[in-house]
């Protein structure tokens, strides 16, 4: 454990870094930012809108500032990770996120995206109510190789486990993101389910034709500790 790495809850001043984290995690090493492809936005425009959506701080879904933990080295932000308990406030996170997108993206663009929504449904994986959900794990080059992703995840599990009635943590990732899969396996997650499609139109929107659900139990897990 590096003592110069500080992990803390994100605040509004971190919004631009969180925009970077969300966009880079979503791209999964490709140049495909699905939000831009789905809603026909250029990346700069989407990043500006995402900043505004984050500032609404709608908890229980992946575009919420206060559901993020960030890592700093000597005051510089180097890592981020979002975590929440699925459905804790009564609504699925996907519906909460959809409400936020309705706030940030005009109706005309959403109507125009309807056909693309149909394509995306082929890769849909449901999250389990009461499970801790991990999203948008991102570490800048400066922080890599220091176990920061794992520490961010561990801190989320530690802070959320008492509310996680399903007794597990989940993460959904694109099947081609081997680096992320390795990081999650290192953090104790194991593959549970996959969705695949042969519809190549999806590659216009998302990084791959598959999604993977990984899980990790919480009960009796000695590796959940207070690092950071």
């Amino acid at each position, binding site marked *: 454990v590096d003592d110069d790495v500080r992990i803390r809850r994100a605040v509004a001043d971190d919004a631009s870094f969180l925009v970077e984290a969300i966009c880079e995690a979503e791209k999964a090493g490709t140049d495909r930012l699905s939000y831009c492809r789905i809603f026909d936005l250029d990346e700069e425009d989407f990043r500006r809108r995402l900043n505004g959506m984050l500032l609404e701080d709608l908890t229980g879904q992946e575009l919420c500032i206060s559901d993020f933990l960030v890592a700093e080295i000597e005051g510089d932000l180097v890592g981020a990770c979002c975590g929440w308990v699925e459905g804790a406030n009564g609504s699925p996170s996907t*519906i909460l996120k*959809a409400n936020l997108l309705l706030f940030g993206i005009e109706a005309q663009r*959403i109507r125009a995206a309807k056909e693309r929504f149909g394509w995306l*449904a082929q890769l849909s994986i449901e999250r389990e109510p009461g499970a801790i959900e991990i999203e948008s794990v991102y570490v800048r080059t400066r922080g890599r190789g220091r176990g920061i992703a794992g520490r961010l995840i561990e801190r989320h599990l530690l802070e959320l486990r008492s509310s996680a009635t399903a007794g597990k943590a989940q993460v959904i990732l694109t099947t081609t993101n081997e680096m992320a899969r390795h990081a999650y396996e290192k953090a104790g997650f194991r593959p549970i389910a996959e969705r695949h499609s042969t519809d190549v139109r999806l590659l216009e929107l998302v990084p791959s034709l598959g999604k993977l659900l990984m899980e990790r139990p919480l009960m009796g897990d000695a590796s959940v500790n207070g690092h950071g």
Partner: protein
Amino acid sequence: MARDENTIIEEITPIFREIFDDPALVITPQTTARDVDGWDSLTHMSLIVAVEGRYKIKFGLGDIVKFRNVGDMCRVVLKLHG
């Protein structure tokens, strides 16, 4: 006759049937996303935009996040559209 929740339910039922591709779909004020096959984030966005378009209204984020069922949506439609 005063417009009420039931009037709105009748008016938006065709929208639900079209979005969820189910000509026999019946909705009530108590209907939630969990009760309707295919009600996910993507169909949710299409649904909300279609209802807004039907009444020429725009739901505020503060209203929309409080929707727990179709009845909640109808009450906000009545408030914004009358």
